């Protein structure tokens, strides 16, 4: 979150349905995101934080309160560290050691009944200290009219271990293997955690942000084309 104090800091409760404390994950420099001295705009010293939506304030609105009540009524309630409501989607952040119990409750409780674990994917935030790797699960409940829920687990780069949910959702099998292959996140308890897209002897995990892109040396009169992550570009 930002360091700038707001006028109502600590005085007034935050407005319902808002996300007052955004989570800072890194910062941007300069005007156009150009790196390596390429910013000639005169605003090269500009620093702005990258703010992701923070924990939402009850009532959430949009039918999410009913879902939140149902989750809080189960044993999973204590495992949730943050609930984010953003762009019409609900995300719960779960402590990793509690993930299997939470998933079991989400699937089996009649008021929740998330039958489908549609997708497991990883996201690498290198600047999110202590939570560099996120595992994101997308669940859907057909029983409750295509209700969707995103479950997110964060792990540090130094200990990239998450309990597997394959025993609850067999569909997560290949998705977890792909996340291991691409991000190097180890899913404890997975029946056969092997690489799935890359060859078995491939070094590194390609979708991590620190993975070098290499590129193909295309040379023309002494020049060569650098890989995309080393090119001068806007972002």
């Amino acid at each position, binding site marked *: 979150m930002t360091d700038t104090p707001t006028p109502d800091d600590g005085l007034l409760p935050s407005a319902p349905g808002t996300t007052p404390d955004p989570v800072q*994950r*890194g910062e*941007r420099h300069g005007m*156009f*995101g150009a790196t390596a001295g390429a910013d000639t705009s005169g605003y090269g010293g500009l620093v702005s934080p*990258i*703010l*992701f*939506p923070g924990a939402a304030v009850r009532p959430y609105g949009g039918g999410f309160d009913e879902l939140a009540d149902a989750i809080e009524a189960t044993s999973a309630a204590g495992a949730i560290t943050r609930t984010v409501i*953003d*762009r*019409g*989607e609900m*995300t719960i952040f779960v402590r990793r050691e509690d993930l299997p119990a939470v998933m079991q409750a989400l699937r089996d409780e009649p008021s929740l009944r998330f*039958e*489908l*674990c*549609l*997708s497991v*994917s990883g*996201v*690498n935030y290198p600047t999110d200290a202590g939570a560099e790797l996120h595992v*994101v699960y*997308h669940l*859907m409940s*057909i029983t409750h*009219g*295509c209700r*969707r829920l*995103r479950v997110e687990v964060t792990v540090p780069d130094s200990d990239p271990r998450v309990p597997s949910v394959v025993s609850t*959702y*067999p*569909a*997560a*099998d*290949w*998705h977890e293997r*792909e996340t291991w292959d691409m991000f190097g996140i180890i899913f404890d308890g997975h029946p056969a955690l092997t*690489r*799935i*897209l*890359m*060859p078995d002897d491939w070094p590194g995990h*390609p*979708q991590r942000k620190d993975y070098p*892109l290499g590129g193909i040396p295309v040379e023309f009169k002494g020049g060569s084309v650098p890989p*995309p*992550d080393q090119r001068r*570009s*806007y*972002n």
Partner: protein
Amino acid sequence: MSTQSTDSSVFESADFDSHETPDIFAAPGEDAGARVFTAQGGDWDDIVGDVGSLPEERIVVNMGPQHPSTHGVLRLILELEGETVTEARAGIGYLHTGIEKNMEFRTWVQGVTFCTRMDYVMPLFTETAYCLAVEKLLGITDEVPERASAIRVLMMELNRITSHLVCMGTGGMEMGATTVMTVGFRERERILSIFEMISGLRMNHAYIRPGGVAQDLPAGSIQAIREMMPLLRKGFHELELLMNENPILKGRTVGVGYLDLAGCMALGVTGPVLRSAGLPHDLRKAAPYCGYENYDFDVVTRTGADAYDRLRNRIDEMYQSLDIIEQVIDVLQGHAGPVMVADKKIAWPAQLAIGSDGMGNSLAHIKEIMGTSMESLIHHFKLVTEGFRVPPGQAYAAVESPKGELGCHLVSDGGTRPFRAHFREPSFNNLQAVAAMCEGSQVADVIVAVASIDPVMGGVDR
């Protein structure tokens, strides 16, 4: 393996007189652990005779990744007890392209040109899922013009038909029914010409863009679609006559590749496979997007949960798609309007037009940016080279593709390109069901079961 077709030195050194060879695909020094037979040409009876000389019945067969009936570079590892499959595993990754990683180094608009190449049989669905997710991140979902949504529906439903035709055509060919294939591809060709007319390309369209579509329908396209509809109906009927009550086809497909509702739920299987198990789940009805709630159509279900019912479901879905197309072209014909959001900070600045030398930049637009307005030129340049910025956060958007739920999970860090793009590909997920569908069945049924899932390896490996 026939000894003539391989490097003779292997055989001279090993002094083999039969089809048993050292594993020519093994790494140097790798021990295969068992006797290896390679079937590539030669007389099949010889190989069978050699395998029959083994003391045990149990053999492990590697089918693919270059086998003609495994739907592309899919590798199936089958453990056989005689003709019965006791264990089946699918090996994927032979077509991995790293598209998701590539998208992190291109602008949000350029992302469309990448994701359209994932599942090349249903490119317009991947494009739509991606664009819906970008629009959700931008918060402009409600600002997408109705005409753009209607064009998306039109293109997706046409694409649903082509995807189902490829599924049935290749599936038929794998079972030996080449006429099914020729009829299927003949009908698909009609729709591909419509795609070419509208987007300029037969595949890899990059036609659906964040905020709308690349350009409006060209003159005469609705007329061309109207003229095509009766021909398509006739072609579908021909397919029905060929397949629906065909005793050979029924013998190959009824009760084969069985996966009941509990299996579908556990394995996250959606689409025609789930609907063949009796659950009428279709995102177009359950969570409408692009204005699907305005069109009248039925969700087709059957209860056999086998390859035959999936096939019948697909044929019926093609008829439903025709119904939707008829409704949507009525909407499109009556209402002209914009096909891109009004926000000029997001909408793609260039417009295409047909000139004397083919399609290119619209002359009116070139005249404006080069001749009359320097600000327009700057604006055009900035949007095309730098792109637009998307507020930080994440979004997931899903569409009902011909193969099941196709989802796109996007993360933005406020930059001009995706921080992370992940696609939930139905082919990838549904291939997990191969083991459940095939174990305990005959080898020949494996082909039918895999064809009934309709995997496309471009989508599986991404």
